[in-house]
C-alpha cells in the first residue's frame, strides 16, 4: 500500500473522533481494538520494509503550502521504523494494563490522539510537519497528567507543557533559519529534511543552529540541567501517562538529535561531542545517585530513566555505527523496559495506593509472578546480558570507547550504580519477611496484567538473545547516514571523528 504511513498516522485520530460516540462501558474494548489494529499495521510496515534499502521508504510527498515550502512529506527508514513499532506496542500494552475507570472514554480518546502525534513525529520528513506533531503531542499529555494525576497534577502538567513548549519555539526559529539559508542558496523554499541534508552550512551557522535545535531536543530528552520537569511529570502522572512519557515521548528528543542535529550539522556535532558527553555523564551519575536516594518506587524509575537517557545521548555522539545503532536500539529497549517498570509500579499502586518502598517488603512470597516479572525487567534495566538492555548499552559503550576511554569508563559506572539502586529497590520491596499487615493478602497479577506484561518479557528476552532482526536494519540506515555525514563534513577534524564503517555496503552485517 502506497500510503500506509498516512494510515498509520491518521487511523488512531479518526478512530479517536469516532470514539466520541462509543458507549462509556465499551470505550476500553474499543480503544484496545484500535490500538491493536494500529500495532498490527506497524508490524505490517516492518514486513513490507525493504531491509536492503537504507534510505527513506514508503515516501509520501504532497505539496501543502508551496509558497512556504511546506509539504506533507512522510517516510521511514531503519532508524524510525522500530521506534514507531515500539510506540504502537506500548500504547496497546499501556491501554491493556490500564486500571483507570474514571472518565475512561476521555482517556481512550486522548490516548488515540496522542498515538497519532507520536507516530506523526517519527514519520515526518518535513520540518514543519514534524514540529506540528511534536507540539501537538503536548496537548493530550497535558490532559492526561492534569486530569488523572496525583495531588500536584496541575502544576506538573503546566510545568511539563511550558518547559517543552519554550524549548521547541527556539527550535522553530532554528528551522526557519535553515529554510532561509536554503532559500538563499537555491532560490526555493523547502522544509523537507532530505533537502536540508544536502545543505552544506558554514561551521559558525552550524554551531548556532545546533544550539537552537539542541534546546528543543535537550528539554525533551531531558538532559541535565533541563530535566527538572520530568520527576514532577512522572511523579504526578497516572501509570499510563508515565508509561507513554518514558517509553515514547522522551525518545522524540533523542530521535531529533539523530534525525536533525547529526546529519544537518556534522561539524557542530563533532565540536559538541565533549560538552554533550560531559553533560550526559553528569546526567548518568548524578541522576543515578538521586535515584538511589528516593523513597518512592516510581521516582526511582523516573530518575533511572533520566540516567539511561544519558547513555542514549552518549551513544548518539559517539559518531560511529556502533554508538548510534546502539543508541537507537537502546531507545527501544529503554522504551519497553521503563514502560514495563512503570506498569509494574502501577500494579502495586493500584493494590496499596502507595508507592513508598518502606511500605513493602517480602512481596516475593506474596506475589511470586509479580516478583519474577519485576525481577526480569529490573535486570534488563540494569543491563544484564541476554536481556534487551544489555545489547544497546554494550554497543553504546563500545562505540564511545573509540571517542574517549575515560569518559566511557565514567559512563559505564551507570551499570554499577544502576545495579545498586535497582537491587536496593528489589531488596526493600520483595525480600525479607512480610512486615506490613496490609501486604499479606495482596493479590498476584490478574489476567489483564499478566497478558500485558508477559509479551514485554518475551520481547525483552528475545531481543536480548537475538537482536539481529531489529539491529540490522537500524545499523544499515545508521551507516548510510554516517557515510553521508562524512562526505558532508567541512572540517578535517569532523571527517576524522565520524567513523564510516567499512561494512557499509555489506548489508545486514552486524559486528
Amino acid at each position, binding site marked *: 500500500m502506497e500510503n500506509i504511513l498516512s494510515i498509520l498516522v491518521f487511523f488512531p485520530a479518526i478512530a479517536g473522533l469516532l470514539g466520541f460516540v462509543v458507549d462509556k462501558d465499551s470505550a476500553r474494548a474499543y480503544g484496545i481494538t484500535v490500538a491493536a489494529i494500529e500495532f498490527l499495521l506497524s508490524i505490517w510496515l516492518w514486513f513490507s520494509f525493504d531491509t536492503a534499502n537504507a534510505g527513506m521508504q514508503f515516501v509520501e510527498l504532497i505539496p*501543502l503550502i508551496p*509558497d*512556504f515550502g511546506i509539504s506533507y512529506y512522510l517516510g521511514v527508514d531503519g532508524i524510525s521504523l522500530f521506534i514507531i513499532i515500539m510506540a504502537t506496542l506500548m500504547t496497546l500494552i499501556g491501554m491493556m494494563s490500564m486500571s483507570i475507570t474514571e472518565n475512561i472514554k476521555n482517556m481512550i480518546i486522548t490516548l488515540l490522539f496522542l498515538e497519532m502525534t507520536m507516530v506523526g513525529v517519527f514519520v515526518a520528513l518535513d520540518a514543519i510537519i514534524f*514540529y506540528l506533531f511534536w507540539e501537538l503531542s*503536548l496537548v493530550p499529555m497535558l490532559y492526561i497528567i492534569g*486530569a488523572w494525576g496525583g495531588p500536584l*497534577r496541575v502544576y506538573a502538567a*503546566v510545568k511539563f507543557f511550558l518547559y517543552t513548549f519554550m524549548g521547541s519555539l527556539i527550535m522553530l*526559529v532554528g528551522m526557519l533559519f535553515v*529554510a532561509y539559508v536554503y532559500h538563499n542558496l537555491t532560490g526555493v523554499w523547502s522544509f523537507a529534511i532530505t533537502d536540508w541534508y544536502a545543505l552544506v552550512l558554514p561551521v559558525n551557522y552550524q554551531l548556532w543552529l545546533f544550539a537552537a535545535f539542541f534546546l528543543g531536543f535537550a528539554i525533551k530528552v531531558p538532559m541535565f540541567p533541563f530535566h527538572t520537569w520530568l520527576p514532577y511529570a512522572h511523579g504526578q502522572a497516572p501509570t499510563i501517562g508515565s508509561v507513554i512519557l518514558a517509553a515514547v515521548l522522551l525518545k522524540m528528543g533523542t530521535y531529533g538529535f539523530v534525525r536533525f542535529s547529526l546529519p544537518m550539522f556534522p561539524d557542530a556535532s563533532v565540536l559538541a561531542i565533549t560538552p554533550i558527553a560531559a553533560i550526559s555523564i553528569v546526567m548518568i551519575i548524578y541522576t543515578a545517585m538521586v535515584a538511589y536516594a528516593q523513597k518512592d518506587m516510581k521516582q526511582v524509575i523516573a530518575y533511572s530513566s533520566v540516567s539511561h537517557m544519558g547513555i542514549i545521548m552518549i551513544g548518539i555522539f559517539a559518531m560511529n555505527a556502533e554508538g548510534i545503532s546502539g543508541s537507537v536500539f537502546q531507545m527501544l529497549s529503554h522504551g519497553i523496559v521503563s514502560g514495563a517498570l512503570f506498569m509494574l509500579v502501577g500494579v502495586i499502586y493500584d493494590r496499596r495506593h502507595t508507592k513508598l518502598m518502606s511500605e513493602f517488603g517480602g512481596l516475593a512470597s506474596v506475589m511470586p509472578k509479580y516478583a519474577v516479572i519485576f525481577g526480569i525487567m529490573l535486570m534488563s534495566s540494569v543491563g544484564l546480558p541476554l536481556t534487551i538492555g544489555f545489547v544497546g548499552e554494550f554497543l553504546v559503550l563500545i562505540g564511545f570507547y573509540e571517542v574517549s576511554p575515560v569518559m566511557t569508563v565514567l559512563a559505564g559506572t551507570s551499570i554499577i550504580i544502576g545495579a545498586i539502586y535497582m537491587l536496593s529497590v528489589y531488596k526493600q520491596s520483595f525480600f525479607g519477611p512480610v512486615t506490613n499487615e496490609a501486604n499479606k493478602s495482596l493479590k498476584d497479577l490478574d489476567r489483564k496484567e499478566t497478558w500485558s506484561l508477559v509479551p514485554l518479557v518475551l520481547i525483552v528476552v528475545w531481543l536480548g538473545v537475538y537482536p539481529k532482526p531489529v539491529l540490522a536494519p537500524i545499523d544499515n540506515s545508521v551507516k548510510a547516514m554516517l557515510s553521508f555525514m562524512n562526505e558532508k563534513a567541512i572540517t578535517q577534524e569532523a571527517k576524522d571523528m565520524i567513523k564510516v564503517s567499512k561494512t557499509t555496503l555489506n548489508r545486514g552485517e552486524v559486528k
Partner: protein
Amino acid sequence: MLQPINVSLESLNLITLAPMLVAIAGGLIILILDLINEKLHKSLYVMLTILVLVIDFGATLGLNVNERGFFDVMLIDGISIVSQLLIIVASIIFTPLALTSKRFHEYSYPEFFALFLFMVAGFQFMVASDNLILIFVGLETASLSLYTLIALHNRSNSYEAAVKYFTMGALAAGFFAMGSAVIYALTGSVELYRVADVLAARMDETGLMIAIFGSSVLLLVAFAFKLSLFPFHTWAPDVYEGASAPLAGYMSVVPKVAAFVVSIRIFGMYIDLGVEWVRVVILVLAVLTMTLANLMALVQEDVKRMLAYSSISHAGFIIAALALDTTEGTTAIFFYYALFMFTNLGAFTMLWISRHKVRRFDARFDHPYEKFAGFIKIMPVGAVIMAIFMLSLAGVPPFSVFWGKIYVMQAAVNSGYVWLAIVMGLNSAIAAYYYLKLIVYMFLKDPVKDVDTVYYNLSKPLMAVIGMATIATIAAIFYVQPLVSYIYYMISASGY
C-alpha cells in the same frame, strides 16, 4: 479670473467609491425602514446588514488594482482592496452575534446597525486613500460610530469605556492632525505620494530632518494609540472590558487593520526614504508591546481582560512586521489578521454565549476564570472548541494563528532580524502560560457553581458562527496557500 471647472465623469472614476457608497446607502435604508415601521425585529436588521456587507464585498472584489478616482483622493491599490475585504469579512461574521437568545439592549435599536454600516464605510475610506485629509475623515467617521456603539451597551462601565475610548481617540486625532499639519507645512501637500517625492528631493537638508522627526513622532503617537502599542495601550483593556464581547472582538481586529494600512503608507514611506530611526522606534515599540502586554496578561483574573492584553500583544507582534518594510512583512500583517480574526472571533463569541445580564461569579468581572472551571463537564464540545481557540492563539500547530506566526517569524529571519524572531518565540512561550491557564480551568478543575447557566446566551446563529470559526481555525492548513498567495500578489502589485 476664475475658470469654470470641467470635470468629466470618467476622470472621477466613481466606481472606486462604490463599496463605501453601498455601506452608506445600506445604513440609510435601515434608518428609513425604521421611520416607516418601528416594530421590526432585530433579526431583519441583522440580515439586512449582512446583505449590504455582502454587496459591499462584491463591489470591493470588482475593483481594479492600482486605480485612482474622485479627484485622485481615492487610491485603490492592493493594500486597500485586501484590507477592505478583511474589514468587510470581519464585519459580516461579527454581525450575527446580535442574534443571541437573550435580549440585549443595544441590538433592539436599528440605529445600532445603521451606525455599524457607517463605521464600516469610515474604515473603508480610511484604507482607500493616501490623502491625509480623507484618512482623517474616514478615521473619525469610523471612530465616532464605534464610540457610540460601545456606549449603546448601556451599562455603567460601557459608558466609562466609551468615554475613555473617546478621550483617547480625540487625543490621537489631535496628534494625527498636528502631524499632518507639519507634513503639509513641509511639503505643501497632503497626498502621500507627492509628499514622498518632495521629501526625497530634500532629504539632505538638516533642518528638514528635524521637521520630519517632529511629524513622525506626532504620527507615531497617534497610531500607537490606535494600535494600542505600549505605552499608549492603557485604555484598551478597560474599553474591551466595558464593550460587549462581539464589539471587543471586533475592535481587536478591524480598527487595527485599518490603522495598520495607514501606518504602512506613512511609516513605510519614512523607512523607504531612509529615515532609519522610525524603523528602530517601531521595533522598540513592537518588542515592548508584545513583552509587557504578555506579562500583564499573565496576572489578569478576567478572561476578557486577558484576551484584551493578548490582542495588544498580537498587535505588537504584527507591528514588528511593519518595521521590516519588505513585501513579505507587509503580507504578513494582513495574513496574520486574516487568521487571527477567526480565532479571536471564536474566543469572544464563546465569552458572549456565557454572558449574563447580572454578574454571578464575581462582583467586578463578567468572565472570571472561575466561571470556566470544569467547563469540560458542563459543556464538553464548547470546552474543546474554546481550548482549540486558545491553542491557536498560543501558536500551537496546526491551528490557524500558528501559520501567521511562522510567516511573520520567517519574514523577520529573511530580513536578517533573527533576534526579533527569537524574541517572538520567547513571547509565544510566555503567552502560552495564560492561554493554558484557561485550558487548565476548563479541563482540570471542578465546576464552581451555577453550572447550568454557562451557555445562557446560546442560540442557533451563534452556534453557526462558532462552528465557522472552529472550522477556519482547524482547517487553516488547507487554505493558507491560496490566502497567502492572493495577499502577496495584491501587496506586491501595489509596490509595497
